[in-house]
């Protein structure tokens, strides 16, 4: 027994807390003392988790960190799901970071690409969400976690309101390994509406001088949905939702899927699909789902995070959304990702690039964005055993071998063949496969969703059923067939396309009963944000930048 070493980690925590001394009154730190406290609780070599989620940001603590000098903060192994703020970038510019492990850097994608070029961004790996949360319990356990909550009470209990997001996943491994948890809160109150994190797991609390930053990520203005997107949505509804009777699903955040949500109460209703599809959702509270919810399509929605402006609406629709005893909305990213991995019939989302083998990515040399929630949901979990109609039907089409699962999750990529400015979506090789990117990522190409996991690609040209393809060559031909007039599409062979179409592997809009001339924005349940507010009976409070009334 090496008893001498037992408790070293705990002793080290005590030393750190002692160094803080009178800078804290119990757990409470004054805003002005935060930089000094951070200096005392963080040591060189630490694994530091700075909470930057998809939406909420511990921005006050991030700014305080970024205000320190390299002599006070160095050799840090940073772990965080999302690199979102300029302050995050500042830590790299100052050379404080030894290694970073993260998931997503969308808003700072360009800055991250610049840092990579300047060799100031030492990446361990770009993770999927659950992969990183899992590693918090394995080899990336934070010594110090800087987190964000809405409120704290006098004991240090935390209330996370709508945006629970990653917070429990960050705090638990830290708190149960003698790490230090430091929370910024918008307000310290006597009594919390509900307790989301017990005070036991919290070491320090600061009332930040400004409310934490929330990224409004999932508000899609129906006014910006194009008629081409409506066409694709109609094709997807008929060719996939209706065909497989998709009951449970996740939607990406793009305008393509927003169009589908807004077609349910109109086009979907006309097709007689209400009650047959789209009942259970694992998705953020998307404002564009309001008409479908109000029309009685949706039985349940579980979310990764909240969405600005949806607080009153979700609270009022507690039969559909998960809400706490206080009546308020609840979310949880790791649990949502888990649900999306095992519990749903279908994942459908968009991508910037798809290669000839069906691999997709949003990464290029000029923008390193990483992944959002797509890879966990857009993959085939072989750990699944429960059957559903959609799962079995898709599985049967894939012609499973004697050693494989009988079912398949529907993993659908829905893209226009060209992005804005005539940039082709379909390419022979992903930009992400660029040697400099692969080198920075230790030989790994940052693929969002692997072609082997994709069952269908939907474009304005039609649907390619990749799962039903019997060879790599056939899959490539199917992709070319729906790649339109991109260079990839122009290489298609007319006879081969006709043969795939005859076998139902390639379906044109008319093959699934959609006439392109029918595609019109007037099919959408509402054409603008104001309409969503009207649908919500005034319960939805859209962010100011979307309000024009």
């Amino acid at each position, binding site marked *: 027994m090496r008893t001498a070493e037992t408790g070293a980690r705990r002793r080290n925590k005590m030393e750190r807390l002692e160094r803080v001394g009178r800078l804290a009154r119990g757990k409470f730190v004054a805003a002005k003392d935060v930089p000094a406290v951070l200096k005392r609780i963080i040591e060189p070599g630490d694994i530091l988790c700075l909470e930057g989620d998809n939406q909420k940001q511990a921005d006050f603590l991030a700014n305080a960190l970024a205000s320190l000098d390299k002599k006070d903060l160095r050799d840090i192994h940073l772990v965080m799901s999302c690199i979102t703020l300029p302050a995050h970038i500042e830590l790299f510019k100052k050379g404080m970071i030894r290694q970073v492990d993260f998931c997503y850097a969308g808003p700072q994608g360009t800055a991250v690409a610049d840092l990579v070029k300047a060799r100031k961004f030492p990446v361990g790996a770009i993770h999927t969400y659950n992969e990183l949360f899992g590693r918090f319990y394995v080899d990336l356990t934070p010594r110090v976690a800087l987190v964000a909550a809405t409120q704290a009470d006098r004991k240090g209990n935390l209330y996370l309101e709508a945006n629970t997001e990653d917070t429990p996943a960050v705090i638990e491994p830290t708190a149960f390994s003698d790490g230090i948890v430091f929370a910024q809160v918008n307000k310290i109150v006597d009594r919390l509406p509900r307790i989301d994190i017990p005070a036991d797991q919290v070491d320090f609390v600061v009332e930040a001088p400004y409310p934490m930053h929330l990224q409004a990520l999932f508000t899609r203005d129906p006014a910006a949905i194009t008629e081409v997107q409506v066409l694709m949505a109609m094709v997807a509804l008929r060719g996939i939702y209706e065909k497989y009777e998709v009951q449970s699903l996740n939607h990406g955040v793009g305008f393509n899927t927003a169009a589908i949500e807004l077609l349910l109460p109109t086009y979907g209703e006309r097709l007689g699909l209400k009650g047959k599809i789209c009942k259970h959702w694992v998705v953020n509270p998307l404002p564009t789902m309001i008409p479908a919810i109000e029309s009685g399509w949706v039985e349940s929605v579980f979310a990764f995070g909240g969405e600005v402006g949806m607080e009153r609406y979700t609270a009022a629709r507690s039969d559909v959304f998960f809400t706490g005893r206080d009546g308020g909305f609840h979310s949880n990213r790791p649990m949502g990702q888990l649900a999306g991995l095992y519990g749903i019939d279908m994942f459908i989302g968009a991508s910037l690039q798809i290669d000839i083998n069906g691999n997709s990515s949003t990464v290029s040399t000029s923008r390193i964005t990483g992944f959002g929630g797509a890879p966990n949901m857009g993959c085939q979990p072989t750990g699944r055993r429960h059957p559903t109609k959609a799962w079995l039907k898709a599985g049967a089409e894939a012609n499973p071998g004697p050693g494989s699962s009988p079912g398949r999750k529907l993993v659908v990529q829905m893209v226009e063949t*060209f992005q804005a400015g005539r940039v082709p979506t379909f390419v022979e090789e992903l930009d992400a496969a660029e040697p400099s990117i692969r080198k920075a990522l230790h030989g790994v190409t940052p693929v969002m969703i692997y072609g082997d996991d994709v069952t269908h690609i939907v474009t*304005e040209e039609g649907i390619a059923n990749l799962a039903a393809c019997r060879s790599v060559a056939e899959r490539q031909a199917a992709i070319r067939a729906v790649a339109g*007039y991109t260079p990839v599409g*122009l290489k298609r062979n007319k006879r081969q396309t006709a043969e795939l179409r005859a076998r139902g592997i390639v379906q044109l809009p008319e093959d699934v009963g959609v006439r392109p*001339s029918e595609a019109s924005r007037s099919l959408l349940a509402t054409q603008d944000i104001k309409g969503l507010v009207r649908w919500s009976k005034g319960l939805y409070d859209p962010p100011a930048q979307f309000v024009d009334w």
Partner: protein
Amino acid sequence: MEKFTKAFPSKPLKTTAGKPWALAGVVGSGNLEVLVERGGRPSDAMECHIETSIPGYKASWLAALADFAHHYPAGGTKVTINDQGAPPVLVTLRLRQAYDHLVKGSK
């Protein structure tokens, strides 16, 4: 601006009824206007005149127009396009709209 002209083999237009011309779409960012007129020569080809603000996509244009001429009897029509960067799908969609108006005479 890039301009090109080409005729694509196409079966002759079926009816002589309907309108002498039809126009679909507008010239705006990411959009285009398509004017289809009767009386193009010869009667077994769709004669196309393209003016586009984004050069370098001639191959896509020609393929999309050839496909249209192949799928629809549009021989003897003259197609003139003013484009401001529309994606090919809109080219096909607008062509189809203008063609329908021309053939059916609906406005």
